[in-house]
């Protein structure tokens, strides 16, 4: 269970997140929806440790944690970026295994097995030797998901998962997210698309505009 308690964040005089309380149950999906500039991406970035918060706290299973603490090996929130940010010079397989190898210091057998298992689950098995530029948008997204999941995060967070894809792929993304939910993956999805948010979310957090 991931909890946010009284989390606030301002940029200059502008309050982007104001005393937010939030509870995300294990295996559930939180959809954060709202117009751009509403602070929903900022919320994701604070959870990922890419932005600091001004006040409040994050709790995982009742225990406080600091997402910006890079010494912490245990990863709480894995991120699938809007434009995926795959490493272009690394193959699909290397994209997935880089962090488990370099950060978790797993041995080759362990990270290879994990990558193959994730690839199988996400339909990437035939693409492991390819490079990102050879993949379609949907395939890149699944590589980004596999890369994030290889670090065994407690929560998987997506920033606008439908925006970099063809409109026709929205349903596929929905299906993918719901499939992962069945596997017990806790997910946070930031989106401007209300219908999409309602389709997938167990819980909807509406963020107001400016």
């Amino acid at each position, binding site marked *: 269970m991931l909890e946010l308690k009284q989390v606030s964040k301002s940029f200059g005089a502008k309050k982007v997140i104001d005393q937010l309380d939030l509870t995300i149950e294990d295996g559930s999906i939180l959809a954060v929806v709202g117009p751009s500039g509403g602070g929903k991406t900022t919320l994701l970035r604070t959870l*990922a*440790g*890419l932005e600091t918060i001004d006040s409040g706290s994050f709790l995982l299973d009742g225990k406080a944690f600091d997402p910006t603490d*890079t010494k912490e*090996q245990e*990863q709480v*929130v*894995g*991120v699938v*970026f809007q*434009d995926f*940010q*795959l*490493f*272009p*010079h690394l193959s699909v397989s290397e994209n997935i295994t*880089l*962090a488990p190898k*370099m*950060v978790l210091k797993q041995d080759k057998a362990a990270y290879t097995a994990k990558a193959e298992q994730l690839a199988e689950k996400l339909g990437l098995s035939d693409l492991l030797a390819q*490079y*990102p*530029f050879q993949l379609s948008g949907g395939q890149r997204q699944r590589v980004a998901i596999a*890369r*994030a999941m290889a*670090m065994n995060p407690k929560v998987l967070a997506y920033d606008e998962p439908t925006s970099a894809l063809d409109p026709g792929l929205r349903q596929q993304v929905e299906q993918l997210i719901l499939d992962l939910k069945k596997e017990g993956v806790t997910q946070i999805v930031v989106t401007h698309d209300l219908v999409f948010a309602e389709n997938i979310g167990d819980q909807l957090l509406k963020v107001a505009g400016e």
Partner: protein
Amino acid sequence: MFEYLVNVMPQLISGTGITVKLFALTLIGSIPLGILFAFVLASRLRILKLIVQVYVWLMRGTPLLLQLIFVFYGLPILGIVFDRFEAALIAFIINYAAYFAEIFRGGIQSIPAGQYEAAKVLRLSPIQTIQKIIIPQVVKITLPSVGNEVINLVKDTSLVYILGLSDVMRIGKIAMERDSTLLPLVGVGLIYLVMTGVFTLLLKQIETKLDYYR
């Protein structure tokens, strides 16, 4: 005429030793130094950055020939004495490091911020990020510009004749004055063409090798 050229070539070729040695050692010294300076230039370390910026301005803003003369004839006034080859090597390394620093800085800054963030979220350390994510991409991006500098360096080594080092250029010049003919300089030109030709082909090959991703 052709016979003269054939006869003078061995002398000229004996000068390539100095040329190649200076060329290779300059690259070995200036590329790592350039990378280091590039990260300072791309960083937010204000004071350090300003120092490197001034250094780059001095190195790129004055002729290399002048720098060679200052290192060899000027530094001894301050009690710092180098022999001819050392002086040439130092001048070349600090000069080329400045050019490489600017090239690599451009490369580093062209890597999207999202790549750093992706690495950070995956818990890669800053050093790991630079090693595994940034440098490999910068190498590919900057290779054409680095190649240009490498070719320039081959030709710039000819400036050391001013310090009396017996490189290809100086031997050619001596032969020219001794035999009252321009032919040795034709030979000199041929030698530089062969050397730059080799590096052009080599760089093309490396470029092809790095073409595995886009």
